[in-house]
């Protein structure tokens, strides 16, 4: 079931890569090469933490549900959780 979901995500139009990272920063599953994975994992983990703490600082009842970073070349989407992080890099339809 899980495999299918992840495969389906990867198969969507424009998706460049998918990474699953755990709370310690270990990439559990990735479709990109290892150095890129390590870079994305490290940087996005920090950013997600910062974003989450920002949202919670403003309103402690609130919590971060999704993070989308749109850049000139593509969009990085991060779905955070307490233990894991799902990162997808997509080239949006332009």
């Amino acid at each position, binding site marked *: 079931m899980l495999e299918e979901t*992840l495969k389906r*995500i990867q198969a*969507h139009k424009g998706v460049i890569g998918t990474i699953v990272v755990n709370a310690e*920063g270990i990439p559990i599953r990735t479709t990109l090469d290892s150095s890129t994975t*390590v870079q994305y994992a490290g940087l996005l983990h920090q950013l997600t933490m910062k974003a989450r703490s920002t949202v919670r600082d403003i309103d402690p009842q609130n919590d971060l549900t999704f993070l989308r970073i749109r850049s000139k070349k593509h969009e990085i989407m991060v779905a955070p959780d307490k233990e*894991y992080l*799902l990162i997808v890099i*997509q080239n949006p339809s332009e």
Partner: protein
Amino acid sequence: MEIVYVYTKKRSEFGRQCNFSDKPAELHVDILPDPSLTDNFIDRDPCDVAIQCTQEMSEHEVNTERFDCEPCGINHVEGGWPKDVNSQEMEQTIRYRKKVEKDENYVNTLMQLGSHMEHCIRQNNTIDIYQEYFEEEEIVEEMEGQPSAKTVNVFRDPNEVKRTATSLSWHPDGSCKLAVAYSSMEFQKVTKDMSYDSYIWDLENTNKPEMTLKPVSPLVCLEYNPKDSHILIGGSYNGQIAYWDTRKGSQPVEMSAVEHSHRDPVYKVIWLQSKTGTDSFSASTDGQVLWWDIRKMSEPTERLVLDPSKKGNLDNALGAFSLEFETTMPTKFMVGTEQGVVVSCNRKAKTPAEKIVCTYSGHYGPIYALQRNPFFPKNFLTVADWTARIWSEDIRDSSIMWTKYHMAYLSDGCWSPARPSVFFTVKMDGTLDIWDFLFKQNDPTLSLKVCDEALYSLRVQDNGRFLGCGSQLGTATLLEISSGLCTLQKNEKALATAMFERETKREKILEACHREMRLKERSRSEQSKEDEAKDGEAEESAEELVACAEREFYEVVEAEMKKRGKDDKKEKEKYEGKDGCKEKES
């Protein structure tokens, strides 16, 4: 007048307590007004009194100390592996991963996250959420507000003893680097600890130059080779030319031999169009223009002496300050001289005498900048003394357009490569002027004070958007100008052409008139020569003219004095109230 009132107290009463009593008022002194004193004063009417009714405020400026930052990178390494797993071992990591994947929590979480993620991905694929609506409709760009320019970056000379930034050159591809030549142009102000280095700056990093160029003598001018962006050529203060290859380090790859170089500082060096891309030429105030091939720097390939009498006499030569070369006209070039004359030369002439084609005079001081308009090569801009002038190649006697005389000396100028009617000038009081003569002819469209010290050099980047100016204390300022000043307006070329043609025609007509007048004068003096049959008639007639002018002048003065004398008399009589008829007598 003294007013004295005497208090007396008897000695026996010293130290006694004070006894107060009431007394009616007594007049002690009465000073009456003295009308004669009013003669010492004049009535003042009206009296100006300034009243201000605002809140008093004080101003306070605070600036933080300059913060030096250094860029550094982070090395990412996979981390977080538990102690028992060796991250290098593939087997162990794979095993660990498999273990995590079997975890129930993992599966559940990921299913949830996955569905959420899919939603967003689908969203992205369906519609561009950042789509620009109405983009096709061209927003009619009427000068978005005011033309403006803002400072983007400032590059300061890192040495203690500051030198002038005499020349700037943009990197030919992409313009992400700026080469600045530093030297001290003040004669004999060079101190022992003044460094000779010039720098190449990366536009992003203002703290430290990207590369240092170490010449033997400070560089006055510096140019990137437009064909090969690693090669730079520089002209130095002692007259030598040197070239660098940025891949080979800070020392010059080769320098010209001292005996064959210039004898004065080299003020301008330009790369030529050639198949090999190694030719260049340089100009200096010693009156020579030398051609060099950088593969063989021991001797110049060609030499031209700027002697207006065309005899190749070095003593007569005009010192050259600026050079102009347009790649579309490779055989012609122009030299701006110290004497305020622009000399147009033909490189392919057979004899040295024919090399100098014509001269354009009209400036009072050395010509610091000379450049052809990139859109209209027949017209060129010169910047010298207190004005900037635009010339047409056909009219030799005067410029077709010129700015008013400024308060400060103009030190450099150039055309905008993006718009034919825009040019930039910098002045010794630290201001940058941007002129757009289709918009306003009398004043600059934008005048900006860049810094407090004098600005010595200016260079526009090829896209016309960024420009760099160098100042006396070695500060190179990078400015960005608003898009209105660097995008071609509709009709601009046509309007500029029309303006240039109109001004050229006007000058031609004036020239023709002058010529006619001169011819008439000459024929008249020829006639009088025949009548008198005297030698040196021309000179005498000049003296006569002078004497005549003097006589006329004194006559006019005397007439004025007489008239004034009559007026004075009239005034006096009026004042004394004499009979009106008597006026008529005088």
